[in-house]
C-alpha cells in the first residue's frame, strides 16, 4: 500500500515538475523569439532555473522514496 502512495506521490512530483519545466521552457522560447540577440543569456538563465526546479523535484522524489 505504501508503495502505491509513493508512486502516486512520485507521479504528482513529476506532474508538478513537468508543468514548471514547461513554463520555463515556453517562456524562454518566447523571450528568445522576442529578443533573439539575448538568446545566450536567456538560455543560461533557463538552464539554471530548470536545474533548480529539477533539484527540487529530485529532492522530493528521494524524500518520498522509502
Amino acid at each position: 500500500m505504501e508503495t502505491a502512495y509513493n508512486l502516486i506521490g512520485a507521479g504528482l512530483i513529476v506532474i508538478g515538475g513537468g508543468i514548471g519545466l514547461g513554463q520555463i521552457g515556453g517562456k524562454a522560447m518566447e523571450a528568445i523569439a522576442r529578443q533573439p540577440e539575448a538568446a545566450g543569456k536567456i538560455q543560461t538563465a533557463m538552464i539554471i532555473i530548470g536545474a533548480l526546479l529539477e533539484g527540487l523535484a529530485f529532492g522530493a522524489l528521494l524524500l518520498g522514496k522509502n
Partner: protein
Amino acid sequence: MYRAYFKIAFFALIFTAFATAQAQEHNGDYAFDDEIESDGGKVNTKEEIDSYIDHHLKDSHDFHLFSYSDDAGVRKHVGFSLPVIVWSSEGLKFFMSSRFHHDDDGKVLVKAGDATFTKLHSKIYELDSGATAINFDADHHPTNAHRVFDMSITKSVFGLLLIGLLMLLVFGALAKQYKTKKIPTGFGRVLEPLVLYVRDEIARPNIGETKYRKFMGYLLTVFFLIWISNLLGLTPFGFNITGQIAVTVCLALFTFIIVQFSGNKDYWMHIFWMPGVPVLMKIALIPIELIGLLTKPFSLLVRLFANITAGHVVVMGLIALMITLKAQFGIVGSTGLSIFLTLFLSVIELLVAFLQAFIFTMLSALFIGMAVAEHDHHEHAGTEEDDIDEVRERFI
C-alpha cells in the same frame, strides 16, 4: 603530437595487462568457491536484473569487467581486486578484496589480525568479538556486526584517482605547452576552449570580474572532475562515481564551505538582518534564510546524484530489455530495440553528463558570486535618472 596517443595506448595496455593478470589470479581462487558466487553470474530473470542494477549503482570493492562461461561451463571473471583499508576496533586493517571471493551476502569471513570482516551489500562489516557467523534480524539487518570506517580503494575511489591522474597529466601537459608557445597544439586545442568556457561563461559572469580568479582552481577542478566522472560512467567499465551519494555530498559540502568562508558582510547581513524590511519581518526571515542556506548544497548534491543514478538505471534497464522482451519480440527484435533505445538514451546521457557538470559548477559559481557580491544600495537612488537614460538609449 603523437606522443599523447602513445601515452594513452600505453596506459590502456598496462590496464588490460593488469586486468588479465588479476583475472587469472581470480580464476585460481574461484574454482573452489563456485557455490558462494553472488554477483557476476548469469543474469536472466527480472529479479536478477534488478539486483544487478542495484549492485551496479553501489560502490564495489573490486573491479569487475565482465564474466563468461568457458567450455567446461565454469564461470570466469575478468577484472582485478582492489585493496581494502578499514578502520576497525582493532585499528587500521589492510587486505585485498579478492579474499572476499566476490561474496556480497556476508557469507565469507575474512580474518585480518584479530578482527573478522565480511561484506554485505557492498559494505564491509566487522563481526562483534566472539561471533563466528553473521546473524540477521527480520529486516535483514545484521545483529552481531557493525559497519566500519571503510577507506578502501573502492571502484569509485579508483576511478577518482584515475581521473585525477588523467587531469594532472593532460592539463599539466597543456600548462607546459604554454611555456614554449602562445597557442597550444594537438589535444591542447580541445582543452583550451573548455578552460576558457568555464572561465568566461561560468566564473566571470557569476562571480564578477575582480574576484573570479580566486575561485577558478576549485571551479575548474570540480567541473572537469564531474564531467569526466560522468563520462566514465557511460563507458562499459561501469564506474558510477557521481552516482555515489558520498561523492556528491562531498562536492556539495566543498561548495558550501567555500561559499560560507568567502561570504562578505553583506552576505551575512542578508541572512541574519535583512535590510529594508520591518524588524518583525527580519526576525521571521532568519530561519527562512538559514533553511535556504542549507537547501542550496542539498539541491546541488541531490541533483547530481539523482541525475546520474537515474541515467544509469534507465540505460541499464534498456540494455536489459534485450532479456526481458526476448519472449515477446524474439532475440533479434529485443536486441535491436534495446540497442536502438540504449543508443538514443546514451546520446542524451552524453549531454546530461556535460550539463550536470556545467550546472554544478554554474550554481557553485552563482552561490559564490552571491556571497562575494558588493551591494551598493545608496548609489542607486542618486543615479536613477541616469539609469532611465541608459535604458532608453538601449531601446533606441
